């Protein structure tokens, strides 16, 4: 069974979700959005899925549209939270996991979705952080992602602007800042997967078509590598078909540079897989 990098990427994101968690994605995050629905249809059927920007609880959308608050995203949900209801739940710690990305991400998992370049006269004004600058402080677990790692501009030595706080900012670590959430737990990129032991990103898995040296070259912060570095686990047939059913419009593909989408993989028939 063949699959493309965007599919594998989304499956890896989905796997950061644990059963029974309450999970949320921000708007404009199709990969995370699709990943949540994949998780709910595979290994984590009992999650409470909160649809970003619609705040619908456990919907079954007929398709994922390219905008985050289309009414299709509340189909099948008995309830949609009010804006404040969602944010209150997240601030008091009742939302277990949020997906976050950024134009820049540093080694501590700080993210910049505000501006590249000096704040007074930015080189690129990005869209902005939504609710991240409070949510990142309180949500127990963050799953970060970047689909532009290879560009060399996404994973940086230090963010030009810290919108959402990771494990440590120049103002202090999470304990010093009084944050109740646990910070970034995983980071998935189109090159590999990181965890955050001691609050700093560490490469634990890489895609089979990418070398550690390529990853190091694309990474602006010091690349720490796990002793037991492995290749990422392939998606199962169930995961791929869930993904294809959920995202029939392919909105996830919009997050990738066109060239990345040419990366096609195949299950090695010689290797056992869960499909």
């Amino acid at each position, binding site marked *: 069974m063949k699959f493309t990098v965007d599919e594998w990427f989304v499956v890896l994101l989905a796997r950061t979700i644990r059963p029974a968690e309450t999970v949320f994605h921000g708007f404009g995050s199709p990969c995370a959005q699709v990943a949540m629905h994949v998780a709910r249809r595979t290994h984590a059927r009992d999650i409470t899925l909160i649809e970003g920007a619609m705040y*619908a609880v456990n919907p079954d959308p007929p*398709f994922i549209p390219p905008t985050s608050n289309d009414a299709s995203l509340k189909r099948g949900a008995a309830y949609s939270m009010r804006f404040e209801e969602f944010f209150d739940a997240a601030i008091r710690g009742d939302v277990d996991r949020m997906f976050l990305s950024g134009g820049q991400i540093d080694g501590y998992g700080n993210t910049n979705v505000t501006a590249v370049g000096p704040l007074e006269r930015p080189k690129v004004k990005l869209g902005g*952080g939504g609710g991240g600058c409070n949510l990142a402080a309180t949500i127990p677990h963050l799953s970060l992602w970047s689909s532009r790692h290879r560009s060399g501009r996404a994973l940086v030595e230090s963010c030009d602007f810290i919108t959402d706080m990771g494990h440590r900012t120049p103002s*202090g670590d999470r304990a010093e800042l009084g944050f109740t959430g646990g910070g970034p737990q995983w980071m998935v990129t189109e090159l590999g997967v990181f965890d955050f032991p001691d609050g700093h990103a560490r490469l634990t898995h890489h895609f089979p078509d990418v070398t550690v040296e390529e990853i190091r070259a694309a990474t602006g912060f010091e690349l720490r590598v796990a002793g037991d570095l492995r290749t990422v686990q392939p998606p199962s047939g169930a995961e791929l078909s869930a993904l294809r059913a959920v995202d029939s419009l392919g*909105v996830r593909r*919009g997050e990738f540079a066109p060239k990345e989408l040419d990366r096609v993989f195949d299950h090695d028939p010689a290797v056992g897989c869960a499909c």
Partner: protein
Amino acid sequence: MGLQPHRNKVVDLAAAIADVRDGAMIALGGGLSARLPMAAVREVIRQGRRDLHLVGSAHSIDVDLLVAAEAVHRCEESYVGFEQDLGLAPAYRRAAETGTIEVAESCCVTILAQLRATEMGLPFLPVRGVRGSDIRRLHPEYGEVTCPFTGEVLVAVPALKPDVALLHAPLGDRYGNLHLEQPYVLDERFASASMRVVATVERLVSTEDVAASGVTIPAHLVAAVTEVPFGAHPASCYPNYAYDREHLSGYVKAAQSGGEDLAGYLKTYVYGVADEREYRDLIGSERLAELGRWPESTVDWKGLFQ
């Protein structure tokens, strides 16, 4: 402030917007691609307002168009853009990069707390995050407060009271009772915290009909109401119509190119139409009908996004 007395509040769009002053703090209802008060936004531009201070959560063409028309002085939203699909907000981005607007980017939770402070009659509220984020550098007005019980130091944010909230709803009555579908976004909070609420509605109906659907925002919070079919276009206003992705895409291209292309968009869709009836004629009844055809089948619905 005081609640609005129970009386007929129907006015035409031009009159409803005439109360918006240069320099006013404006709250825009809806968010992203849903229920943006676009007819009101176009009228604000037509009336030549300047130096507006926009506050809200995550927005798109409403803010971008106001910035493109040079109506904005300060932008205090949590996000302005067209999501992953159509990308950065071109006019907003250009104005921020060249320094022609003051970017006071905020956070959904902080804006919510500031509106709630006004709503709850308090001069400030504490928020839990913000410390450690550079968002704080954009807001020298924030303070700190120490919890008398736990000793925790929390960021304190001042109450925010918009001069005018511009809201769009699928249904309303002449007293200003409004029915909304989810997502309500900040509309309810804006309605309580703003000095004045101006509502456009797809259809003016009887109080009984609004009540049957459910009153989301009550008449006593609304100062003026005006009927504007397709008043959220090119955003969506469910259950009436989906967003017009093709139109938005055209706008983003024009705005990215800027100069004459952007001026052309403004001329065609804002300055060049005397009112919203002309705007609807311009978009065309066929296209508008298409956007309303989403309930017919999933295929039709999905087709609007392909």
